[in-house]
Protein backbone atom coordinates (compact mmCIF):
# COMPACT_ATOMS: atom_id res chain seq x y z
CA UNK A 1 0.00 0.00 0.00
CA UNK A 2 2.57 2.59 0.97
CA UNK A 3 4.89 1.33 -1.69
CA UNK A 4 2.94 3.33 -4.22
CA UNK A 5 4.50 6.80 -4.41
CA UNK A 6 2.06 9.41 -5.69
CA UNK A 7 3.67 11.98 -8.06
CA UNK A 8 3.40 15.57 -6.76
CA UNK A 9 1.55 16.81 -9.84
CA UNK A 10 -1.46 14.74 -8.74
CA UNK A 11 -1.24 16.45 -5.34
CA UNK A 12 -1.19 19.89 -6.96
CA UNK A 13 -4.15 19.02 -9.19
CA UNK A 14 -6.16 17.83 -6.16
CA UNK A 15 -5.08 20.92 -4.26
CA UNK A 16 -6.39 23.29 -6.91
CA UNK A 17 -9.64 21.33 -7.10
CA UNK A 18 -10.07 21.72 -3.34
CA UNK A 19 -9.43 25.47 -3.47
CA UNK A 20 -11.92 25.89 -6.29
CA UNK A 21 -14.52 23.86 -4.43
CA UNK A 22 -14.01 25.92 -1.29
CA UNK A 23 -14.53 29.12 -3.22
CA UNK A 24 -17.63 27.66 -4.87
CA UNK A 25 -19.27 26.51 -1.68
CA UNK A 26 -18.69 29.87 -0.01
CA UNK A 27 -20.04 31.73 -3.06
CA UNK A 28 -23.11 29.52 -3.44
CA UNK A 29 -23.99 29.95 0.21
CA UNK A 30 -24.97 33.58 -0.52
CA UNK A 31 -27.64 32.54 -3.05
CA UNK A 32 -31.00 31.58 -1.60
CA UNK A 33 -31.71 28.06 -2.92
CA UNK A 34 -34.11 27.19 -0.09
CA UNK A 35 -33.52 23.67 1.20
CA UNK A 36 -31.01 23.06 -1.61
CA UNK A 37 -28.43 25.22 0.16
CA UNK A 38 -27.73 22.51 2.72
CA UNK A 39 -27.69 19.75 0.12
CA UNK A 40 -25.21 21.61 -2.08
CA UNK A 41 -22.97 22.63 0.83
CA UNK A 42 -22.82 19.05 2.15
CA UNK A 43 -22.38 17.65 -1.35
CA UNK A 44 -19.36 19.85 -1.98
CA UNK A 45 -17.95 19.04 1.46
CA UNK A 46 -18.37 15.33 0.74
CA UNK A 47 -16.65 15.72 -2.62
CA UNK A 48 -13.72 17.58 -1.03
CA UNK A 49 -13.44 14.94 1.68
CA UNK A 50 -13.40 12.17 -0.93
CA UNK A 51 -10.64 13.94 -2.86
CA UNK A 52 -8.51 14.35 0.26
CA UNK A 53 -9.08 10.71 1.21
CA UNK A 54 -8.44 9.19 -2.22
CA UNK A 55 -5.28 11.09 -3.10
CA UNK A 56 -3.76 12.69 -0.05
CA UNK A 57 -4.51 9.65 2.13
CA UNK A 58 -3.66 7.15 -0.62
CA UNK A 59 -6.98 5.32 -0.28
CA UNK A 60 -7.00 4.99 -4.06
CA UNK A 61 -3.82 2.87 -3.86
CA UNK A 62 -4.67 1.06 -0.62
CA UNK A 63 -5.80 -2.55 -0.21
CA UNK A 64 -9.59 -3.07 -0.22
CA UNK A 65 -9.57 -3.51 3.59
CA UNK A 66 -8.93 0.24 4.03
CA UNK A 67 -11.99 1.10 1.98
CA UNK A 68 -14.10 -1.36 3.97
CA UNK A 69 -12.93 0.21 7.24
CA UNK A 70 -13.85 3.72 6.00
CA UNK A 71 -17.19 2.55 4.64
CA UNK A 72 -17.89 0.90 8.01
CA UNK A 73 -17.13 4.09 9.89
CA UNK A 74 -19.42 6.18 7.68
CA UNK A 75 -22.18 3.53 7.80
CA UNK A 76 -22.11 3.50 11.63
CA UNK A 77 -22.32 7.30 11.70
CA UNK A 78 -25.32 6.99 9.39
CA UNK A 79 -26.94 4.48 11.80
CA UNK A 80 -26.51 6.92 14.69
CA UNK A 81 -28.00 9.82 12.70
CA UNK A 82 -30.79 7.95 10.93
CA UNK A 83 -32.25 5.98 13.84
CA UNK A 84 -32.07 8.96 16.21
CA UNK A 85 -33.74 11.23 13.67
CA UNK A 86 -36.39 8.51 13.15
CA UNK A 87 -37.47 9.45 16.68
CA UNK A 88 -37.25 13.23 16.41
CA UNK A 89 -38.94 13.49 13.01
CA UNK A 90 -41.89 11.22 13.84
CA UNK A 91 -42.71 12.71 17.25
CA UNK A 92 -45.62 14.76 16.14
CA UNK A 93 -47.20 12.11 13.93
CA UNK A 94 -49.38 10.36 16.45
CA UNK A 95 -51.95 12.91 17.60
CA UNK A 96 -50.61 12.79 21.13
CA UNK A 97 -47.17 11.59 22.18
Amino acid at each position, binding site marked *: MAQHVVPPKIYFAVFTALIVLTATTTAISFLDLGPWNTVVALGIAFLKATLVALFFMHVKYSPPLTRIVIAGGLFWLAILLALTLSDFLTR*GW*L*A*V*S
Partner: protein
Amino acid sequence: MDQGFPLFPQQASSMAPRVDNLYFYLLAVSFFFATLIALSVIYFAIRYRRRSESETPPGVEGSLKLEVAWTVIPLLITLTFFFWGTKLFFAMNRPPTDALEISIVGKQWMWKIQHADGQREINELHVPVGRAVRLTMTSEDVIHDFFVPAFRMKKDVVPGRYATAWFEATRPGRYHVFCAQYCGTKHSAMTGWVEVMDPLAFQNWLAGGTGSESLASAGAKLFALHACNTCHRPDSLARGPNLEGLFGKTVKLQDGRTLVADENYIRESIVAPNAKLVAGFQPIMPTFQGLISEEGLLQLVAYIKSLSKAGPSPAGIPPPVKESAPEREAPK
Protein backbone atom coordinates in the same frame (compact mmCIF):
# COMPACT_ATOMS: atom_id res chain seq x y z
CA MET B 1 -54.54 -5.74 49.95
CA ASP B 2 -51.83 -6.82 52.40
CA GLN B 3 -52.80 -10.50 52.56
CA GLY B 4 -49.52 -12.52 52.76
CA PHE B 5 -47.33 -11.75 49.81
CA PRO B 6 -48.80 -11.56 46.31
CA LEU B 7 -47.04 -13.23 43.41
CA PHE B 8 -49.02 -11.47 40.70
CA PRO B 9 -50.25 -7.88 40.45
CA GLN B 10 -53.99 -7.03 40.56
CA GLN B 11 -55.78 -6.40 37.30
CA ALA B 12 -57.52 -3.09 37.94
CA SER B 13 -57.68 -1.47 34.50
CA SER B 14 -59.09 -2.31 31.08
CA MET B 15 -55.52 -2.67 29.78
CA ALA B 16 -54.30 -5.02 32.54
CA PRO B 17 -55.86 -8.28 31.29
CA ARG B 18 -54.71 -7.55 27.72
CA VAL B 19 -51.10 -7.01 28.88
CA ASP B 20 -51.24 -10.09 31.08
CA ASN B 21 -52.52 -12.26 28.22
CA LEU B 22 -49.54 -11.21 26.09
CA TYR B 23 -47.28 -11.80 29.12
CA PHE B 24 -48.60 -15.34 29.58
CA TYR B 25 -48.16 -16.06 25.85
CA LEU B 26 -44.54 -14.88 26.09
CA LEU B 27 -44.06 -16.95 29.27
CA ALA B 28 -45.44 -20.05 27.60
CA VAL B 29 -43.20 -19.78 24.53
CA SER B 30 -40.14 -19.01 26.67
CA PHE B 31 -40.88 -21.88 29.02
CA PHE B 32 -41.18 -24.23 26.05
CA PHE B 33 -37.83 -23.23 24.53
CA ALA B 34 -36.05 -23.07 27.89
CA THR B 35 -37.12 -26.61 28.81
CA LEU B 36 -36.38 -27.85 25.29
CA ILE B 37 -32.80 -26.62 25.55
CA ALA B 38 -32.35 -27.62 29.20
CA LEU B 39 -33.65 -31.15 28.66
CA SER B 40 -31.58 -31.72 25.53
CA VAL B 41 -28.43 -30.45 27.25
CA ILE B 42 -29.07 -32.64 30.29
CA TYR B 43 -29.92 -35.64 28.10
CA PHE B 44 -26.78 -35.22 25.94
CA ALA B 45 -24.64 -34.62 29.04
CA ILE B 46 -25.78 -37.92 30.56
CA ARG B 47 -26.23 -40.02 27.41
CA TYR B 48 -22.82 -39.02 25.94
CA ARG B 49 -20.86 -38.60 29.17
CA ARG B 50 -17.17 -39.33 28.80
CA ARG B 51 -16.57 -42.96 29.74
CA SER B 52 -12.83 -43.13 28.96
CA GLU B 53 -10.21 -40.55 28.14
CA SER B 54 -9.28 -42.26 24.89
CA GLU B 55 -12.83 -42.05 23.47
CA THR B 56 -12.96 -40.16 20.13
CA PRO B 57 -16.52 -39.32 19.04
CA PRO B 58 -17.37 -38.92 15.32
CA GLY B 59 -16.93 -35.43 13.86
CA VAL B 60 -20.27 -33.83 12.99
CA GLU B 61 -19.94 -30.87 10.61
CA GLY B 62 -23.38 -29.33 10.89
CA SER B 63 -26.52 -29.19 8.84
CA LEU B 64 -27.81 -26.29 6.78
CA LYS B 65 -31.41 -27.44 7.11
CA LEU B 66 -31.22 -27.41 10.90
CA GLU B 67 -29.55 -24.00 10.93
CA VAL B 68 -32.18 -22.48 8.64
CA ALA B 69 -34.92 -24.07 10.75
CA TRP B 70 -33.75 -22.63 14.06
CA THR B 71 -33.25 -19.23 12.53
CA VAL B 72 -36.55 -18.91 10.65
CA ILE B 73 -38.80 -20.47 13.30
CA PRO B 74 -37.65 -18.19 16.16
CA LEU B 75 -37.93 -15.23 13.77
CA LEU B 76 -41.57 -16.05 12.95
CA ILE B 77 -42.42 -16.56 16.61
CA THR B 78 -40.80 -13.27 17.63
CA LEU B 79 -42.77 -11.51 14.89
CA THR B 80 -45.97 -12.59 16.62
CA PHE B 81 -44.65 -10.96 19.81
CA PHE B 82 -43.90 -7.84 17.76
CA PHE B 83 -47.33 -7.45 16.19
CA TRP B 84 -49.31 -8.22 19.34
CA GLY B 85 -47.06 -5.92 21.38
CA THR B 86 -47.37 -3.09 18.85
CA LYS B 87 -51.16 -3.38 18.76
CA LEU B 88 -51.23 -3.00 22.55
CA PHE B 89 -48.70 -0.17 22.49
CA PHE B 90 -50.81 1.87 20.06
CA ALA B 91 -53.91 1.23 22.18
CA MET B 92 -51.99 2.53 25.19
CA ASN B 93 -50.93 5.66 23.33
CA ARG B 94 -54.36 6.59 21.96
CA PRO B 95 -56.59 7.87 24.79
CA PRO B 96 -60.34 7.87 24.01
CA THR B 97 -61.65 11.34 23.15
CA ASP B 98 -64.26 11.47 25.91
CA ALA B 99 -61.80 10.74 28.72
CA LEU B 100 -61.85 12.63 32.03
CA GLU B 101 -59.02 15.24 31.89
CA ILE B 102 -56.61 15.27 34.85
CA SER B 103 -53.25 17.07 34.93
CA ILE B 104 -50.30 15.97 37.01
CA VAL B 105 -47.15 17.91 37.79
CA GLY B 106 -44.17 15.88 39.02
CA LYS B 107 -41.90 17.81 41.32
CA GLN B 108 -38.88 16.52 43.21
CA TRP B 109 -40.36 13.93 45.21
CA MET B 110 -44.17 14.55 45.08
CA TRP B 111 -47.03 14.32 42.61
CA LYS B 112 -49.26 17.44 42.40
CA ILE B 113 -52.58 16.49 40.82
CA GLN B 114 -55.29 18.85 39.47
CA HIS B 115 -58.75 17.79 38.35
CA ALA B 116 -60.57 19.60 35.55
CA ASP B 117 -63.01 20.96 38.14
CA GLY B 118 -60.21 22.44 40.21
CA GLN B 119 -59.76 19.83 42.96
CA ARG B 120 -56.09 19.62 43.90
CA GLU B 121 -54.44 16.60 45.52
CA ILE B 122 -50.88 15.65 46.54
CA ASN B 123 -49.87 12.03 45.93
CA GLU B 124 -53.56 11.04 45.81
CA LEU B 125 -55.64 10.53 42.66
CA HIS B 126 -59.39 9.94 43.00
CA VAL B 127 -61.01 8.56 39.86
CA PRO B 128 -64.39 7.02 39.03
CA VAL B 129 -64.48 3.35 38.07
CA GLY B 130 -65.40 2.43 34.49
CA ARG B 131 -64.51 5.87 33.06
CA ALA B 132 -61.48 6.55 30.84
CA VAL B 133 -59.11 9.03 32.48
CA ARG B 134 -56.53 10.97 30.43
CA LEU B 135 -53.47 12.24 32.30
CA THR B 136 -51.56 15.25 30.98
CA MET B 137 -48.30 15.23 32.88
CA THR B 138 -45.19 17.37 33.08
CA SER B 139 -42.31 17.87 35.51
CA GLU B 140 -40.90 20.97 37.17
CA ASP B 141 -37.32 19.76 37.49
CA VAL B 142 -36.00 16.35 36.41
CA ILE B 143 -37.49 13.33 34.61
CA HIS B 144 -40.00 11.40 36.76
CA ASP B 145 -42.27 8.52 35.76
CA PHE B 146 -45.93 7.97 36.72
CA PHE B 147 -46.31 4.22 37.20
CA VAL B 148 -49.43 2.40 38.40
CA PRO B 149 -48.61 -1.34 38.38
CA ALA B 150 -52.24 -2.38 38.88
CA PHE B 151 -53.18 -0.50 35.69
CA ARG B 152 -50.01 -1.72 33.78
CA MET B 153 -49.56 1.96 32.94
CA LYS B 154 -46.25 3.84 32.97
CA LYS B 155 -45.09 7.03 31.31
CA ASP B 156 -41.95 9.09 31.79
CA VAL B 157 -42.76 12.65 32.83
CA VAL B 158 -40.20 14.81 31.03
CA PRO B 159 -39.70 18.47 32.04
CA GLY B 160 -40.37 20.98 29.28
CA ARG B 161 -43.12 19.04 27.55
CA TYR B 162 -46.44 17.20 28.24
CA ALA B 163 -46.55 13.41 28.45
CA THR B 164 -49.93 11.80 28.00
CA ALA B 165 -51.15 8.52 29.43
CA TRP B 166 -54.61 7.10 29.97
CA PHE B 167 -56.32 4.27 31.81
CA GLU B 168 -59.82 3.05 32.54
CA ALA B 169 -60.10 1.65 36.08
CA THR B 170 -62.29 -1.45 36.24
CA ARG B 171 -62.19 -2.31 39.98
CA PRO B 172 -62.67 0.05 42.93
CA GLY B 173 -59.81 0.05 45.43
CA ARG B 174 -56.55 1.72 46.41
CA TYR B 175 -53.59 1.05 44.10
CA HIS B 176 -49.92 2.02 44.37
CA VAL B 177 -48.45 4.90 42.38
CA PHE B 178 -44.65 4.73 42.02
CA CYS B 179 -42.08 7.09 40.49
CA ALA B 180 -40.29 4.72 38.10
CA GLN B 181 -37.51 7.01 36.77
CA TYR B 182 -34.67 7.74 39.17
CA CYS B 183 -35.04 11.39 40.18
CA GLY B 184 -32.82 11.99 43.17
CA THR B 185 -32.58 11.56 46.92
CA LYS B 186 -36.19 10.72 47.79
CA HIS B 187 -36.99 8.91 44.54
CA SER B 188 -38.32 5.95 46.53
CA ALA B 189 -40.52 8.25 48.65
CA MET B 190 -42.23 9.77 45.62
CA THR B 191 -45.11 7.33 45.80
CA GLY B 192 -48.84 7.71 46.18
CA TRP B 193 -52.23 6.09 45.76
CA VAL B 194 -54.93 5.92 43.13
CA GLU B 195 -58.33 5.73 44.81
CA VAL B 196 -60.83 4.16 42.38
CA MET B 197 -64.38 4.92 43.58
CA ASP B 198 -67.93 4.15 42.45
CA PRO B 199 -69.28 6.95 40.27
CA LEU B 200 -71.68 8.09 42.98
CA ALA B 201 -68.97 8.16 45.66
CA PHE B 202 -66.75 10.02 43.17
CA GLN B 203 -69.42 12.69 42.61
CA ASN B 204 -69.77 13.21 46.38
CA TRP B 205 -66.00 13.45 46.69
CA LEU B 206 -65.95 15.98 43.85
CA ALA B 207 -68.74 18.01 45.42
CA GLY B 208 -67.06 17.89 48.83
CA GLY B 209 -63.85 19.19 47.27
CA THR B 210 -62.35 22.57 48.16
CA GLY B 211 -64.77 24.02 45.60
CA SER B 212 -62.03 26.16 44.04
CA GLU B 213 -62.67 27.24 40.52
CA SER B 214 -62.15 24.98 37.55
CA LEU B 215 -58.88 24.71 35.68
CA ALA B 216 -60.20 26.67 32.71
CA SER B 217 -61.53 29.56 34.77
CA ALA B 218 -58.25 29.76 36.73
CA GLY B 219 -56.59 29.89 33.32
CA ALA B 220 -58.85 32.72 32.23
CA LYS B 221 -57.78 34.71 35.30
CA LEU B 222 -54.10 34.12 34.49
CA PHE B 223 -54.80 35.07 30.85
CA ALA B 224 -56.12 38.43 32.05
CA LEU B 225 -53.47 38.84 34.78
CA HIS B 226 -50.60 38.54 32.29
CA ALA B 227 -52.44 40.84 29.83
CA CYS B 228 -52.33 38.21 27.11
CA ASN B 229 -55.55 39.67 25.72
CA THR B 230 -53.75 42.88 24.68
CA CYS B 231 -52.34 40.94 21.70
CA HIS B 232 -54.50 37.80 21.52
CA ARG B 233 -57.94 39.24 20.88
CA PRO B 234 -60.64 38.43 18.35
CA ASP B 235 -60.81 41.99 16.91
CA SER B 236 -58.60 43.79 14.36
CA LEU B 237 -56.14 45.17 16.95
CA ALA B 238 -54.78 41.66 17.49
CA ARG B 239 -50.95 41.44 17.11
CA GLY B 240 -50.92 37.74 18.08
CA PRO B 241 -52.78 34.73 16.58
CA ASN B 242 -56.46 34.42 17.56
CA LEU B 243 -56.67 31.67 20.18
CA GLU B 244 -60.34 30.82 19.79
CA GLY B 245 -60.71 27.44 18.09
CA LEU B 246 -56.91 27.11 18.06
CA PHE B 247 -56.71 23.75 19.88
CA GLY B 248 -56.70 20.88 17.35
CA LYS B 249 -56.41 23.28 14.34
CA THR B 250 -53.47 22.94 11.90
CA VAL B 251 -51.18 25.96 12.16
CA LYS B 252 -48.89 27.18 9.35
CA LEU B 253 -45.49 28.31 10.67
CA GLN B 254 -43.16 31.02 9.38
CA ASP B 255 -40.62 28.50 8.07
CA GLY B 256 -43.25 26.68 6.04
CA ARG B 257 -43.83 23.79 8.46
CA THR B 258 -47.41 22.99 9.50
CA LEU B 259 -48.43 21.23 12.70
CA VAL B 260 -51.55 20.44 14.71
CA ALA B 261 -51.92 22.72 17.73
CA ASP B 262 -51.84 20.35 20.72
CA GLU B 263 -51.07 20.97 24.39
CA ASN B 264 -47.32 20.75 23.78
CA TYR B 265 -47.50 23.43 21.06
CA ILE B 266 -49.54 25.78 23.26
CA ARG B 267 -47.22 25.28 26.24
CA GLU B 268 -44.09 25.81 24.10
CA SER B 269 -45.56 28.95 22.55
CA ILE B 270 -46.00 30.43 26.03
CA VAL B 271 -42.56 29.38 27.29
CA ALA B 272 -40.55 29.79 24.05
CA PRO B 273 -42.82 31.83 21.76
CA ASN B 274 -40.44 32.04 18.83
CA ALA B 275 -39.49 28.36 18.61
CA LYS B 276 -42.51 27.79 16.34
CA LEU B 277 -43.43 31.27 15.02
CA VAL B 278 -46.86 31.40 13.30
CA ALA B 279 -46.73 32.59 9.69
CA GLY B 280 -47.67 36.22 9.26
CA PHE B 281 -46.80 37.34 12.81
CA GLN B 282 -43.81 39.23 14.17
CA PRO B 283 -41.65 37.53 16.87
CA ILE B 284 -42.58 40.17 19.48
CA MET B 285 -44.07 37.92 22.21
CA PRO B 286 -41.79 37.87 25.30
CA THR B 287 -41.03 34.50 26.94
CA PHE B 288 -42.95 33.65 30.12
CA GLN B 289 -40.35 31.02 31.13
CA GLY B 290 -40.13 31.09 34.92
CA LEU B 291 -42.89 33.71 35.22
CA ILE B 292 -45.74 31.15 35.14
CA SER B 293 -45.56 27.93 37.18
CA GLU B 294 -46.26 24.55 35.58
CA GLU B 295 -49.71 24.55 37.23
CA GLY B 296 -50.36 27.97 35.74
CA LEU B 297 -49.34 26.73 32.30
CA LEU B 298 -51.73 23.79 32.66
CA GLN B 299 -54.51 26.19 33.61
CA LEU B 300 -53.75 28.44 30.60
CA VAL B 301 -53.72 25.43 28.28
CA ALA B 302 -57.03 24.24 29.77
CA TYR B 303 -58.49 27.73 29.22
CA ILE B 304 -57.32 27.89 25.59
CA LYS B 305 -58.67 24.38 24.99
CA SER B 306 -61.99 25.46 26.50
CA LEU B 307 -62.10 28.31 23.96
CA SER B 308 -62.19 25.87 21.11
CA LYS B 309 -64.43 23.08 22.49
CA ALA B 310 -67.66 25.01 22.97
CA GLY B 311 -67.11 28.04 20.79
CA PRO B 312 -66.58 31.63 22.07
CA SER B 313 -68.06 31.40 25.57
CA PRO B 314 -67.54 34.52 27.69
CA ALA B 315 -64.25 34.15 29.46
CA GLY B 316 -64.41 32.97 33.06
CA ILE B 317 -67.46 30.75 32.82
CA PRO B 318 -66.24 27.25 31.83
CA PRO B 319 -68.62 25.16 29.68
CA PRO B 320 -70.15 22.39 31.83
CA VAL B 321 -67.98 19.25 31.72
CA LYS B 322 -69.90 16.67 29.63
CA GLU B 323 -71.01 14.01 32.16
CA SER B 324 -71.63 10.78 30.25
CA ALA B 325 -73.56 8.21 32.25
CA PRO B 326 -70.84 5.89 33.56
CA GLU B 327 -72.61 2.58 32.77
CA ARG B 328 -70.74 -0.56 33.91
CA GLU B 329 -68.64 -1.40 30.88
CA ALA B 330 -67.37 -4.97 30.53
CA PRO B 331 -63.55 -4.65 30.67
CA LYS B 332 -62.34 -4.79 27.03
